[in-house]
């Protein structure tokens, strides 16, 4: 069995924000405690998780336009996805022969699973989380064309905007940022109103829906 690995995050950067942007003007609220929380990792080692968290934060930064990958917990989302069936290509056709250099219009044809793509690429990014943000951006620009980067970019957007049931979009911070209300059952009374004006119902997550405590995210399935 592998050694338990944890990602340590300050509550100021995760879970310490709660904001609603009814008029698309997001703002950040920092928790006043200096506590930190330790989140058990399912796939990454702690050094790997720190690299992924840092890289995701350059793709979707926390800046003057609002919170980003750090507050949403994108690294935790990616860790869970890689640990689950998607990470090991449970649903992909993986029979031989593979043709790594197939034209792009036939989709990804490689042999490596998402887990393998991450693990290999992270070897070459040792110390990435210690670099300055300018150096980090330069490093990412060098690998922009790789399958790893496009996977990381895609996973970062997923981790920003997935239902919080999957470990990302903590406190629905991503949804608040864009004014998305989540799985809202009925828009019957509003669908042909509010023309030209932002209509921003308070977001709800799957957990808050009737029977929500029973919903199981796909990454927890075998």
């Amino acid at each position: 069995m592998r050694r338990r690995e944890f990602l340590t995050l300050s509550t100021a950067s995760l879970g310490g924000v709660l904001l609603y942007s009814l008029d698309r003007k997001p703002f950040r609220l920092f928790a006043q405690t200096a506590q930190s929380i330790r989140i058990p990792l399912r796939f990454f080692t702690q050094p790997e998780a720190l690299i992924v968290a840092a890289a995701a934060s350059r793709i979707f930064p926390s800046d003057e336009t609002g919170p980003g990958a750090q507050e949403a917990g994108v690294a935790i989302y990616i860790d869970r996805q890689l640990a689950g069936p998607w990470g090991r290509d449970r649903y992909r056709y993986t029979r031989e022969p593979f043709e790594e250099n197939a034209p792009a219009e036939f989709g990804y044809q490689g042999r490596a699973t998402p887990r393998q793509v991450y693990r290999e690429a992270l070897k070459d990014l040792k110390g990435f989380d210690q670099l300055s943000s300018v150096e980090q951006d330069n490093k990412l620009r060098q690998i922009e064309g790789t399958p790893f980067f496009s996977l990381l970019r895609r996973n970062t957007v997923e981790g920003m905007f997935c239902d919080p049931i999957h470990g990302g979009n903590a406190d629905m911070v991503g949804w608040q940022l864009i004014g998305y209300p989540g799985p809202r059952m009925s828009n019957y009374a509003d669908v042909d109103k509010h023309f030209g004006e932002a209509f921003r119902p308070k977001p709800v997550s799957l957990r808050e829906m009737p029977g929500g405590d029973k919903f199981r995210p796909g990454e927890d399935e075998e």
Partner: protein
Amino acid sequence: MKTLPAVDVVIAGGGWTGLLMAKELGSRTGLTVAVLERGRHRESADYPGTMDELDYAVRLHMMQDLSLETVTVRHDSTQRAFPMRQYGSFLPGSGVGGAGEHWNGISSRFLPDCFELLSRTVEKYGAQRLPADHAIQDWGVTYDQMEPYYTRAERMLGISGKAGNIGGKKIAGGNIFEGWRSSEYPTPPTRIPYFSTLFNNAAKELGYHPYPTPAANLSEPYTNPDGISRSACFYCGFCERFGCMVGAKAQPTNTLLPLIQERKNISIRSGASVRRVIHGDGGSGKRARGVTYIDEQGEEVFQPADLVFLASWTLNNTRLLLLSGIGEPYDPQSGTGTVGRNLTHQVAIGAATAFFEKPLNRFMGSGAAGVCVSDFDGDLFDHSGLPFLRGGTLLGMSMGYRPIANFGIVPQRVKAGWGSEWKKAALESYDRTGFIGFSGEHLAYKGNYMDLDPTYKDRFGDPLLRFTIDWRDNERKMAEFVTPKAVELARAMGAKDVNSFPGLKNYDANRYQFTHIQGGTIMGSSPERSVVNPYLQHWRVPNLFVLGASAFPQNPSAHPTLTILALTYRTADAIVDRYLKNPSALA
């Protein structure tokens, strides 16, 4: 191999066509019917709690498990094919209800001349206007023959829409270009959200004839002729790739399954993967004797039956005939054989991506809530001076947009794809972006076909189905023609930035472009050029019927489900009224 007790009817596939045929035969006759569905059992009560974009729209939990079986794709017969290792250009369903569970519900009829495409086009433009390697054909059925079955399918689904032609009388506000219909739609049009309203107004301003998209997502509560009641749509925006939480979207599980479950003579076996149709020479020519399948426990069983239906979607209908050795496989070089010919997809493009000043609240919507413009459909405009034949419909839909799929779409002037500059632009654009789509006809060509792949296998060791498919100039020129029309519409809607479709190059198996795959077991009026007759009955094996879009000789621009259901009703009538009294060739 275990042999089960014989049934009267065995149906491979438990989606729209399989369950409709089961319900029709099982309730109108006393025949015993077994439906074999390789996916899992599903009921509409399963859907609350599945409003999860990640698991359902991104990880595609309702689709076929590609690790078990996929297709391979290549552009022409000189190339090697690559397996579709993860989903790309289309999304076939699995489980009871099939793709009918996770469709959007857009339900237009085909234009009347689509059914006689070859003869009408030659009549108007001459044979020399047809593309050199075309394989287009007439269907062997006419719109006038189809009309009553269209009406029946619309009433079963409860389609919400506005008629544009009742008995030849044009009605403003409906699609005035549609074929005549015998009556108004069962329910009024759905509500029209903001983006689609802008589209509607702009289309009118430009002199087009916009109309509300016919929807299988109910505008009001409705009880169909079978006594099935469904509630009105809540516009939650979770249609495509999802099962409907409230049953407002017509799905096999909420429209057919409750009727089937009442009947003791119909059974549905899930987890049953049909591998072969067993056939042999009887006293009076070829007959299907039943099917073999792998059951839920992994055991191979033989299910004998008097009547065999393939209702397992275009891919598997074609593959089962090829694997079973029924009929001659199509050979593109010699032009002989019929099984696998006339593979078509659809010219499905995001013609214009429009960026507005004002927010659109586009999380609200429904799979078929929106507005269509069909002024450039079919042969409704003169093609004499144009470098292509036929056309399609422009769509200003409000399907309900979810953030993972739609965040990050920015105007072309924004060069960054990540980082602060991109994030800022993407946040500004997020709820201010709308898509003008186009759904155009894909003609059939001699070089676009399906056969068995020589290299790649499924979980049982059977060869995968291989697509040989590419666009021709007709599709490319059609896309080029319609893109500026969509951009003009976007500008008239008030868009400040517009990204236009870059053009069709080679067939891109990695870009989603509607789940409308047709051909392979096409219908027609001659056994030399088609696999089934106009009643979807196999030309050489009269107790074998092949249902679904695999019967379409080519792709018309409108979406296929309604026509598939209409054709299934027509076959059911022919079987009940004629075949059962005299089991022989219906045509």
